[in-house]
């Protein structure tokens, strides 16, 4: 429950509207309370009229007319006040939801890969959708309802006290039990709501992941098994909901049942008092009507507690995300020079959390401006990890990277990423037009620039083949493109930025050799005098580089030019042999053929 205090700023921001709204609702209740008074007045005057007046007399008419009009006025006033105050309060809930959505969106943008490994997208979506709406309900609904109920109960109690102190105290006897039960249950409800909300997250996560991998599921003909797995998650969610529901329903039943004790006390004790002459019959009857004022809130305790607790658990889930400190700290330094592209890597090590092996160990090298460096290594040797350190998607465990002799963690993140461009190994495209995907960093780019980078990425022909050219809308994640087309689009997106340091993580794996040659020559053309680092598995790619770095199990085992490394006779030389072995074999076949 304490977590709900974190929502206070949202109420405080509109404190006047909130106070007006709540007081308005109380005023509306006063208007409502006046209506029975006028009915009584009308009925009283009817009784008098019957006793003595002429039935058609205007006096009687007026005796009827005034109360009736008064009721109408009360109703209208009550309605207007209610409308205004409800709107005032409900709007605050909406404003809070609006703000929380933006806030969480922004906060998620600050998070690094570690965070996204911890929280799945389905879970985050469930929080952003469901939990925010629970919070909205608490701010706009529960506060309002609670104030009204408290007010009603207080008014009821006030009247009762004024009528009879003894009877009121007697009526209050069951109150401690009611509070204890409500408190006990509210804790249980909180825990169970949490489970329900987590169940919903599980459900979302499952659906979202399954649909993302639908092609794989279908290709393996595992639809049925997936449906069965879903049935489990679904069942669990239903079960948890039912559990929560049984608890809340039980509370809703217990509250009025316990409160009935109060009624019984009035009946029993009150009747005794009446016969003893301690209170009048009128007081006794009136007591019942005021008891109604007290019982209504008690009956609503159940649903209300549920609402509050669900809101509290939603709030806790939201703030769990909002309190998550970004892994990467940002230093908003003042001036940031245009980089020349000189890179120095010093004693760089990286170890993933919950792994004991280092993914990178003591890497040292320097790159001069304008150089092209190729990085080779087996699967899982740490190439991508190394590259991600350059754009601070990861923070080194040890050592540092210097750009133009400045350590990169001294740069503001956006400036750094502006000048150091990493094209990821797994090309991600947005469900947007091809052109907007290429010019993703800056939508104002001229189409000249886009075409230029498309040329360099050997994408021009492909784009021209599409009926809508650059305007072609892609499927989610670019599913409507071929593997190579996707990869080249992602490449073009990196090339278009002309950053002083371009890093390509295995960006030619899905293109054919001819296209690759095209791209490599394009790269040479557009990136003259700019530093480029690229990862590849192919010697045919690496040999274009000025220098080649070989990683093995996170360690740098070789560095040098193509010829140097061939002469040295290590991993690279073996690789060259292996890759050309086949070709030599093929060539042999070829010659033997001719």
């Amino acid at each position, binding site marked *: 429950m304490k977590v709900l205090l974190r929502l206070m700023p949202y109420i405080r921001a509109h404190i006047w509207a909130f106070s007006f709204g709540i007081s308005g609702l109380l005023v509306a209740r006063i208007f409502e309370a006046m209506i029975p008074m006028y*009915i009584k007045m*009308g*009925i009283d005057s009817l*009784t008098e009229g019957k006793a003595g007046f002429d039935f058609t007399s205007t006096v009687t008419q007026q005796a*009827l007319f005034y109360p009736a009009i008064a*009721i109408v006025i*009360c109703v209208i006033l009550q309605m207007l006040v*209610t409308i205004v105050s409800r709107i005032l309060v*409900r709007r605050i809930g909406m404003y809070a939801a609006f703000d929380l*959505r933006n806030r969480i969106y922004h906060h998620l*943008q600050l*998070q690094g890969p570690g965070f*996204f490994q911890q929280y799945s997208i389905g879970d985050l*979506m*469930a929080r952003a959708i469901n939990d925010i709406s629970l919070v909205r309900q608490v701010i706009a609904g529960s506060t309002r309802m609670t104030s009204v109920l408290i007010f009603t109960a207080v008014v009821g109690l006030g009247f009762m006290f004024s009528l009879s102190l003894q009877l009121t105290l007697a009526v209050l006897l069951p109150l401690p039990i009611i509070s204890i039960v409500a408190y006990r249950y509210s804790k249980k409800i909180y825990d169970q709501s949490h489970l329900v909300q987590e169940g919903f997250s599980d459900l979302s996560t499952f659906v979202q992941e399954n*649909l993302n*991998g639908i*092609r*794989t*599921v279908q*290709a393996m003909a595992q*639809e049925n*098994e997936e449906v069965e*797995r879903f049935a489990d998650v679904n069942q669990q969610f239903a079960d948890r909901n039912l559990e929560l*529901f049984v608890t809340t329903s039980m509370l*809703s*039943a217990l509250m*009025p*049942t316990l409160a009935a004790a109060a009624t019984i006390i009035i*009946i029993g004790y009150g*009747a005794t008092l009446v016969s003893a002459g301690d209170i009048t019959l009128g007081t006794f009857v009136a007591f019942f009507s005021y008891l109604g004022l007290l019982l209504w809130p008690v009956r609503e305790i159940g649903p209300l507690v549920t609402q509050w607790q669900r809101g509290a658990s939603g709030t806790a889930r939201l703030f769990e995300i909002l309190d998550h400190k970004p892994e990467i700290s940002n230093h908003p330094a003042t001036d940031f020079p245009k980089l020349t592209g000189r890179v120095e890597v010093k004693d760089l090590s990286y170890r993933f959390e*919950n792994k*004991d092996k280092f993914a990178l160990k003591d890497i040292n090298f320097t790159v001069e401006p304008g150089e092209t460096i190729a990085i080779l290594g*087996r699967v899982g040797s740490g190439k991508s990890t190394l590259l991600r350190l350059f*754009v601070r998607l990861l923070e080194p465990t040890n050592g540092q990277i210097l750009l133009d002799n400045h350590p990169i963690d001294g740069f503001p993140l*956006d400036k750094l*990423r502006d000048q150091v461009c990493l094209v990821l190994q797994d090309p*991600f495209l*947005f*469900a*947007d037009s091809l052109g*907007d995907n290429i010019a993703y*960093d800056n939508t104002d780019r001229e189409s000249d620039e886009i075409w230029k980078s498309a040329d360099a990425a050997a994408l021009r022909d*492909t784009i021209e083949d599409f009926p809508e050219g650059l305007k072609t809308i892609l*499927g989610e994640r670019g*599913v409507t493109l071929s*593997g*190579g087309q996707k990869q080249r689009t992602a490449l073009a997106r990196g090339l278009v930025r002309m950053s002083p340091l371009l890093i390509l993580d*295995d960006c030619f*794996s*899905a293109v*054919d050799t001819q296209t690759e040659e095209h791209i*490599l*020559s394009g790269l040479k*053309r557009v990136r003259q005098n700019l530093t480029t680092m690229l990862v590849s598995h192919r010697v045919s790619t690496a040999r274009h580089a000025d220098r080649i770095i070989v990683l093995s199990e996170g360690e740098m085992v070789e560095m040098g030019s193509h010829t140097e490394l061939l002469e040295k006779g290590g991993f690279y030389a073996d*690789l060259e042999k292996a890759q050309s072995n086949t*070709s*030599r074999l*093929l060539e042999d076949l*070829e010659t033997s053929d001719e």
Partner: protein
Amino acid sequence: MSEAQLEPNKDNNEKSQNEPNNAKLDHSIFDADIHGQSANMVYLARIFSWLSPHKKLATVSVLLVVTASFIAVLLPVLISRVVVDNIIIGEADLLMPDFGLNTLMTWLATITGLDPIIAACILYGLLTLLCHSFYHLHRVTFAKAILHSLRDMRLDLFRHMEYRPSSFYDKVAVGRVMTRITNDVQALFELLMGLGMLVGEFVPFFIALFIMFAIDVKLTMYLLIAIPIFAFITYFFRMATRRVYRMIRNTVSQLNQNLQENLSGMQVVQLSNRERKNLSVYRVINQKNQKHEIEAIYLETGYGAFMDNMVNMALAVILWFGGGAVIQDAISLGSVILFTQFVDMFIRPIRVLGMQYNVLFRAMASAERIFQALDWHEQVREPVKPAKLPERIAGKLEFRHLSFGYEEQDVLHDVSFTINPGEKLAVVGPTGSGKSTLIRLLGRFYDFDNGTIFLDDNDLNSIPSSEVRKRIGVVLQDFHIFSGSILDNIMLGNPSITREKAIDAARLVNADKFIEALPKGYDTLLVERGQNLSQGERQLLAFARVLAADPEILILDEATASIDTETEQVIQQALKQIMQDRTSILIAHRLQTIAEADRVLVLKNGRVKELGTHEELMAHRGVYYTLNQLQFQDISINPAE
């Protein structure tokens, strides 16, 4: 994208152009504007079809609430008629019905020999207990019936979506489908629970109505006029909110989709410094959503407060008309007083109905979306009379005059070739030439009309797609790694794969090395999309997964693209044995990957350019020859012209 959409106050008219990027994907056929016009009754009826297996429970539940509501009516009667009128005042007003409570109390008092007041107390306690027990039982049974029917509905919906073909998911964003399965079904819960309570509310209504008619028909009729008025106002409200609710729904789904896509591509967003811009796009949608939500608040509050308060007008009506009738001696004053007491019972359901209406409308919008999803019937054609495949197929594949295009683009043109049983065919060709498309057709992911594919002389279209996919194992070019353990990812829920078999498959692709180096080995948990592995490691898993399923025909679509040569050579050694006598298709850009193939097919621009053995094609000096030259040429040839 224009800058305009960054300005929140600029409400765009040219929708198609200015809609934020995420809205573009859904083609209109799949999200035809929901007007909320179609009869809600139809939706309700459809919702009830899921409820029908739980009919008994629901019926019991409704009976319970009716009983409970009846007892709830008795409680105040007990106090006013029995305690006050009978016991304390000692005179019973004959006009007021007491539902036999006085008799009951007297009977109780005589058989127990207790004071009447104590008997009344006991009666009150018992009735309360009974009433709330029944309410509780009602709620629990009803919730159970509804939760279970919604569970079934959600499962049906999921199953339905699970079987939609790729062509469908090319067009529809996952986020949209997802929120239908999760949030929209959830929204129905509230609706249906509300309806259950509503049934209970009508009990006092009818009791009150009955008594009121008994007392005075004319006055009751005056009050009943309220109903058409309310109906009219409700109709009006519905008209007014229809557009708003639609806008809310649209903006909400845009918000969700935008969020989802941004979360999926967060690294790209961050590396492109697009955070600020994307946030502002999101803000704009959020702003729009807020605008419509606030409109909805105005309308709902106005309507709700109207329904809520106007019912009190009934009191004025009673006083005015009833009072007039009293003056003319048409009815007794007592009747008027009674009326004012019963009117609350009469009014309550209308009030509750008014409150429920918002829920009802919003939930109807959800129902509409659910049914819309269920009515997306796009699917690959399944044979009416499926051909029966033998236990073990020979594995001959024949493509005959196959032409195919996605929506707007022709991809394959008159492709014809045959793969003999046990043959290994390599398919090479420039990117985008249609290699993966060929495989997708073979896996029956898309329907094709021009040309035929034969599997062992059976027309592929006469074999159910699931059967085809069980026989043909494809290592997809864009495979997906699920969260869960490494082992789960290899077995993929297939019960016929044992742990040993899965580990064997991992060994075959040389994935055992990295897996065993992990602290938890095969039970290591992977996160969404396998983000805690390297790309090559992920690919190895996807490869192992197919080998573990032991398909009769094996297809590798760029299965080793992200894998280093050393590992690849190990895999090739292992594959040699696996592919022996197994029809296989190998697609690769790196030619050493296909060195083992029997024949090579060169596909270019969707046409078969060359087909033959390596030697034949090298001699032919065509596309394949050039590719070879390029790949294995010496560094001395400078590619930069």
